[in-house]
């Protein structure tokens, strides 16, 4: 099976039930061994400095993830959803976004958040339980994390319909990107989003990180066909990219975003990757998958191949890697400190930001609870 420019499968359209597609069947610009591959459909002019910058992002978001897992183990976070193994998919697609584009994440898009300039400490608030997110989506053009699977794909599509109504499609247009996983492709909302985007020709890119596992359920529980092929049935292009190849993710997402901005409508990108860690820190993958599988994917690590490429082509000196290690240490220390020092919100915050306009019943409940709490304080003092 090959994939043409429009991302349409040209042969062997379906696989036997449970069949896993060969890894060669995707857009790849950098092999796991760190060899640069050219693809005429996705030409990528990229300087050594830019590749070093991508490498820096990959290393730093892996460090954020590492620190967050440790903080959860130490009881500082309630839970953490690790992005381990998916750094390239997130940094490649995240770095493809322009400043005016808008991203709608799941709860695992820590790498995209990083690309949008959101302080990783803000992400910890949600996982520590001091807020449900709480950042200003418009300030970073990065929506709140969405936990209900697939809901955000409709929000992204609606937002893109607003972009159309604002006349912001065409030259210098804006695009929207919706992130979701392989499990989400079974949700009604995701399929409805595909329909809406298709019939409205909305400027939205659907970026599916197929990490092979929806908690314990392998891909064959969700689909008999490679996921990118679904796009064809909805009437827009689908393309599969090596999700562990940051250069390919960058090039493929860039092209899809540009098509959306110019009014060519949606694209489905399936980033073929692997969740190297647990679903979240409460999960135990040893119950449902073999260690050997993880070992084969370790050989395709998204970070090692970039390092190999940089070193082999003399694009980075040893001092670059040393400085980056130091930067990661510094970031880690800052995150640990900020997390441990993060105060619990005031109890009265429970009642805030429920409504814009006054709500007498809610205000009465708030006042009643405040009086109740005050009574304890008086007792202590008295």
């Amino acid at each position: 099976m090959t994939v043409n420019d429009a991302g349409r499968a040209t042969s062997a359209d379906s696989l036997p039930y449970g069949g896993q597609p060969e890894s060669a069947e995707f857009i790849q610009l950098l092999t796991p061994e760190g060899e640069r591959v050219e693809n005429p459909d996705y030409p990528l002019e990229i300087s050594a400095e830019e590749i070093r910058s991508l490498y820096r992002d990959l290393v730093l978001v892996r460090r954020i993830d590492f620190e967050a897992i440790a903080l959860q183990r130490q009881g500082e976070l309630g839970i953490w959803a690790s992005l381990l193994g998916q750094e390239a998919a997130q940094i490649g697609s995240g770095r493809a976004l322009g400043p005016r584009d808008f991203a709608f994440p799941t709860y695992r898009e820590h790498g995209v958040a990083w690309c949008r300039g959101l302080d990783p400490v803000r992400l910890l608030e949600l996982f520590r339980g001091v807020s449900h997110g709480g950042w200003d989506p418009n300030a970073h053009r990065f929506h709140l994390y969405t936990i209900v699977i697939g809901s955000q794909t409709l929000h992204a599509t609606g937002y893109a319909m607003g972009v159309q109504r604002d006349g912001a499609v065409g030259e210098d247009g804006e695009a929207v990107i919706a992130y979701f996983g392989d499990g989400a492709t079974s949700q009604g909302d995701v399929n409805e989003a595909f329909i809406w985007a298709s019939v409205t020709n909305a400027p939205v890119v659907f970026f599916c990180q197929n990490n092979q596992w929806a908690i314990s359920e392998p891909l064959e529980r969700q689909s008999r066909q490679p996921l990118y092929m679904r796009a064809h049935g909805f009437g827009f292009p689908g393309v599969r990219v090596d999700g562990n190849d940051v250069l390919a993710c960058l090039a493929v997402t860039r092209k899809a975003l540009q098509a959306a901005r110019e009014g060519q409508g949606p694209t489905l990108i399936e980033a073929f990757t692997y969740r190297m860690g647990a679903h979240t820190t409460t999960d135990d993958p040893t119950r449902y998958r073999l260690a050997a599988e993880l070992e084969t994917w370790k050989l395709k690590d998204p970070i090692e191949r970039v390092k190999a490429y940089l070193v082999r082509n003399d694009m980075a000196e040893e001092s670059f890697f040393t400085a980056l290690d130091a930067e990661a240490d510094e970031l880690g220390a800052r995150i640990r400190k900020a997390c441990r020092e993060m105060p619990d919100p005031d109890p009265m915050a429970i009642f805030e930001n429920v409504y814009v306009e006054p709500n007498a019943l809610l205000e009465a409940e708030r006042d009643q609870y405040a009086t109740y709490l005050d009574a304890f304080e008086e007792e202590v003092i008295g």
Partner: protein
Amino acid sequence: MTRLTLSRALNEGLRKALENDPKVLIMGEDVGKLGGVFRVTDGLQKDFGEARVVDTPLAESGIVGTAIGLALRGYRPVCEIQFDGFVFPAFDQITTQLAKMRYRSLGNVTLPVTIRIPCGGGIGAVEHHSESPEALFTHTGGLRVVACSDPVDAYAMIQQAISCDDPVIFFEPKRRYWERAEVDIAGGLDAALPMSKAKTLVAGTDVTLLCYGPMVKTCVAAAASAADEGHSVEVIDLRSLAPLDTETIFESVRRTGRCVVAHEAPVISGLGAEIAARVSEECFYHLEAPVLRVGGFATPYPPSRLEEHYLPDLDRVLDAVDRTFGY
């Protein structure tokens, strides 16, 4: 003043909202050329175009989900759910996303989305076309829930709902769509009662009868009948179901000492239960009788040949009123 049906009054209200704010959009199934199955959006697409009066694909979660996205972009969508029983595919988007977005964003995001739902029975419809799901929404923090009962309120309240910065679930009494009244569509809304306030329709001294939506007409008629029997019934149209205008409710019950709540929705865990509990807490020493509820049974909505038994009619409301005098 213009004599309008409730359906037409909503239409005029929507028209005003579209005229007054270019960010207002109408979206739903068959709202365009057809004008909606109840003709509430009749002619609006012709006048405001397909970008503002949007015939959507047939998927309710998609309607509300994309409305949320449009609201995030600065639009003010008004979604039509074609029938009450079809809101459930959108229930997830309404309760997990629409209701909570402001809270989750610590106030950084507001979603001024209105969701119009024709509700209730009495039109001889097939299954899933006669439901009263309001309590499912009043139970959800972050939503405002209102119900109009006549053309005058329909015209004003739909505009108030659209201009409200909170998400509003807007119930329309299906079997009252063709009721007529004189509506002032020339003037503004400055004199209109705020959407959050209940309205006393009939003043009385012996018992407070609380109702909303399609039951209002029934309850006003019941009060007239009760007057013939020597009972002075005060009828209050709640209008706002979340939040409740408890000030108006309590003031009335403290005067009358008796309270009956009527709704089409099942009595069990219904809005009447919430009202009864609050009245008991706040008006305990004024009560001459327990708060009584009259409404649908703890069953699915029955086939339409039986709905006259299920829907509380004038006699069942009067029966409840009479029973409050038996204590």
